[in-house]
């Protein structure tokens, strides 16, 4: 299936002058925080959260903001993990790509174009490895683009592997630079059709040969043991890689080349088992690609979120000449509270604002504190005190008690057009929760009885 061309994410809207002005106003007179692959990937983690969407769109430094209001995030990386990661990447790239090329060919069954022309002697890799790492980002981006353009013009020449390429993606109207670890130029599956994992691709197996493509590689230092790796870490790597693929598609489109020239299977390079020797796997990132693309498309629609906000709202983190913040913690806190969050416990490991949001959810007694599945099991009731009241406990200070008292016979007399109101919402939940409470109380009574019998017997 031909890859659909990438949309021009976020270009129109955040360029909508009103929205852009409004976002700049929210951020205050300090530069917007740059997006990178990690922060773009993070957009897919909790897209329903308005607080996060607005702060990200405005380019507010969420970490600094959270620290200012007294809820600094606690996630960091161990120095051991960082040095291990760096050492592994260095080791993988240390031999000018010989190891990597062997992985592509031997472990992933890819055929690299140059290697194909010279099947017996492995090409002299020194010439086929290029490092794009030096210089300014824009400069690196330009050289990456030129390399891709040249490689498309004259296939079979130029480097096989490009180190430190630089790509660019429009995010909310601003250019974000993203750096994949590596690009492998023009490879293809040796056995046609084998790179496509999806069911029902037998048609492509009938094609004479798979087309040449560019492959992006991501080097991670978590281990792949007996062909398995931590699925959460692989998922994070896949979403990040999807950002690179999307940026590469944009680059190709900019050059007038079909975006399908970059593979949606990315090469994940990890340490093998307990060693430092690298191994590799192809990871199909089409799902993650769709998710990232969709979130970038949604960014422009931020305008509707902004419409509901007070005009004086500001997340300005700037300081005066004496280094004193222009806005105090209380003022910032108020601004944060003005935008609704959608807290879930998973946020703790993913969002800088999470401790603030958790505190807020606890203070208001929101069932969000307990997690999504528990909230669903509670019939979607938002407030803990409503849950308790609906379960039949009295004196919880909840409006819901009223709802329970209203005798809506939900089974026998529903008028879809009239009788439905908040009381009915509560009546349905009440039925569920009161069964739960009654079952619990009866069970505890029976357990007590059994316990006494046991003691009497003993």
């Amino acid at each position, binding site marked *: 299936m031909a890859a659909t061309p990438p949309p021009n994410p976020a270009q129109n809207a955040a360029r909508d002058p009103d929205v852009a002005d409004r976002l700049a106003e929210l951020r205050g007179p300090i530069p917007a925080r740059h997006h990178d692959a990690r922060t773009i990937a993070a957009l897919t983690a909790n897209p329903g959260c308005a607080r996060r969407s607005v702060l990200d769109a405005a380019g507010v430094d969420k970490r600094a903001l959270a620290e200012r209001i007294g809820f600094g995030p606690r996630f960091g990386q161990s120095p051991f993990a960082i040095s291990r990661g760096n050492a592994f990447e260095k080791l993988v790239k240390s031999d000018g790509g010989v190891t990597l090329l062997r992985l592509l060919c031997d472990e992933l069954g890819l055929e690299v174009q140059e290697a194909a022309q010279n099947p017996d002697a492995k090409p002299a890799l020194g010439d086929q490895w290029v490092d794009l790492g030096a210089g300014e980002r824009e400069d690196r981006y330009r050289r990456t683009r030129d390399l891709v353009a040249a490689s498309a013009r004259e296939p079979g020449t130029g480097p096989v592997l490009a180190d430190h390429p630089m790509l660019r993606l429009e995010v909310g109207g601003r250019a974000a630079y993203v750096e994949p670890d590596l690009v492998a130029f023009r490879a293809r599956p040796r056995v046609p059709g084998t790179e496509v994992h999806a069911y029902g691709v037998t048609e492509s197996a009938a094609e004479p040969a798979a087309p040449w493509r560019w492959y992006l590689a991501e080097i991670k230092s978590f281990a792949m043991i007996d062909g398995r790796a931590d699925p959460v870490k692989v998922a994070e790597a896949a979403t990040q890689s999807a950002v690179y693929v999307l940026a590469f598609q944009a680059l190709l489109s900019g050059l007038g080349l079909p975006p399908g020239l970059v593979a949606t299977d990315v090469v994940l390079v990890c340490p093998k088992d*307990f060693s430092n020797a690298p191994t590799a796997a192809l990871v199909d990132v089409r799902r993650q690609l769709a998710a990232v693309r969709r979130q970038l498309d949604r960014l422009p629609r931020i305008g509707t979120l902004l419409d509901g906000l007070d005009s004086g709202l500001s997340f300005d983190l700037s300081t005066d000449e004496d280094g004193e913040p222009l806005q105090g913690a209380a003022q910032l806190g108020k601004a944060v509270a003005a935008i609704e969050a959608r807290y879930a416990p998973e946020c703790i490991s993913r969002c800088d604002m999470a401790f603030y949001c958790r505190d807020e959810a606890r203070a208001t007694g929101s069932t969000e504190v307990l997690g999504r599945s528990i909230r669903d*099991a509670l019939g979607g009731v938002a407030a803990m005190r409503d849950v308790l009241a609906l379960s039949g406990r009295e004196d919880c200070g909840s409006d819901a008690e009223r709802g329970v008292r209203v005798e809506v016979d939900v089974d026998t007399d529903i008028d879809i057009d009239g009788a439905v109101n908040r009381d009915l919402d509560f009546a349905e939940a009440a039925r569920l929760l009161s069964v739960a*409470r009654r*079952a619990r109380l009866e069970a505890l009574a029976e357990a007590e009885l059994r316990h006494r019998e046991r003691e009497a017997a003993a």
Partner: protein
Amino acid sequence: MNTLAALARVEAFAAEQAVALATVRHVHLAPHPLVLVPILLAGEAAAPLAALVGTDRADPQLLVVRQPRDRDQRFAFLADLARIVVGYIEGRRGETELVEATRNHEEWERHLDAPQLIVPNCGGIDALRLLGRSARFRSSQGPYPVDPLVPILGRYLTWFAEDRAPTAGSSVCLALTDVLGSHWATGQSALEDQHLAALLAWIVPQHFAPPDGRHLTGAQAAALTEDPARWPSAGPATDPEFDTEILSPLVTALQRAAGDPAAERRAEDGLRAALRDRLAPTWNLMWQGIDLLAGLPEAGHDSHRWMVDRGRFTDFARAIDEGAAPQPRREGAVAAAKRLADLESAQESYDKQRALDDPLILAGYRVTGEAFAGSVVAVDAERQDTTGRTPKPRPHVWLRTADPVVLRKGTKVACAQRPNQRPVIVDVKRDGEEYIVELELVDGMGRRAIPEEGSVPGAGEYRCYSTVLAAERFPPPPLPELAATPWTHGGPPAAYTPTGADHDEEWH
């Protein structure tokens, strides 16, 4: 998460104190469990850094690797651990009991005891799995010889982590947070419950009270445990701050001291002290958790399940004695299918046993529509099926319940009072806000034309009927022998022969 357990969390939140999710203890607790708190070095696959281990709460043994990236030191650590763990296991192999022959099995001896390994959380079990994997293929010969106990340890750790721990109802290898979390509901999320200190804080906040004796609620105590300096993570990963501020300088100091024995010893003592400090709070929490569990009454099926564990232990220990090959890197088709059948059947019996042993567990099924409870309002004990040659007793029982009954006609149910009797629902009628369920008794009444005394519930009796209790277990279908693995599953796999690659695995 059923609504009953979810509501319990809300109640815990409101009370600022954990509430019970179980009224009896659904895991076995050995008199002398081996508690193990493993710590791995961040960023590495399975580089042990330290472990606190032992059966005596007052005297844990601290094992430390000075340089976790050093292969020899890793295996020296594993050899030390092996002496403790394998020694403990061998100590469970004293007395045996005779198990009489059955149709499928000849007479055999079963150990009267079995090992019980308790780690803080599921991350701990994963650490055992990785350590097991890194150790079981090693060899005492060849280019990288290790202590002969290391591969034995590897096989046992693999058995603990990959065989017993995932098997429902097995108590040979437990993650304490999982066990506590299935017996108590806290007012926080399941994610936060994975922090052993935070979980215990909700259950026994008094243990977390500050020196001034101030009373703490569970919620307040749990908030205190978020300070990693006081309540460090229970592993297997260390906190990044600890790595940066404490561990990293100590490791550097050790490297600098190389060549100077006195300085080396000082540096090593510093490292050991730091790690002991780091692990000690978790060690104490482990025993607090175990004490809490010991305070619950034992579940009715406890000894039966432990007997199964003892049997599996007997088999495995014998296989090790006989020099069994290490467990393969990945299970073959036949082994995987067999394990799936085992795990599913263990899960089903555990679910059923817990519902029988604990009214609170059974109550959870009332909320999901898999059970209903109420009083028997009428009984036709005389009713018979006269269509056959001899009339059979088929009493009908009417039960009134306020639970919303969604079970279909024809469904078989059972109750804890007579688990072997499986009546069929023949009718469900609404009566105002309540339901009247009509049941037909078809079995469990003896062999005569008239039901046995007490086999038919009487009017006024309270019963909770559930499909879970009536679940019938069919033995899994026979699978082909390994050598007869069909082409659909790749044909017979090549026989396992240990290769050099297995024990010479590259290390940096």
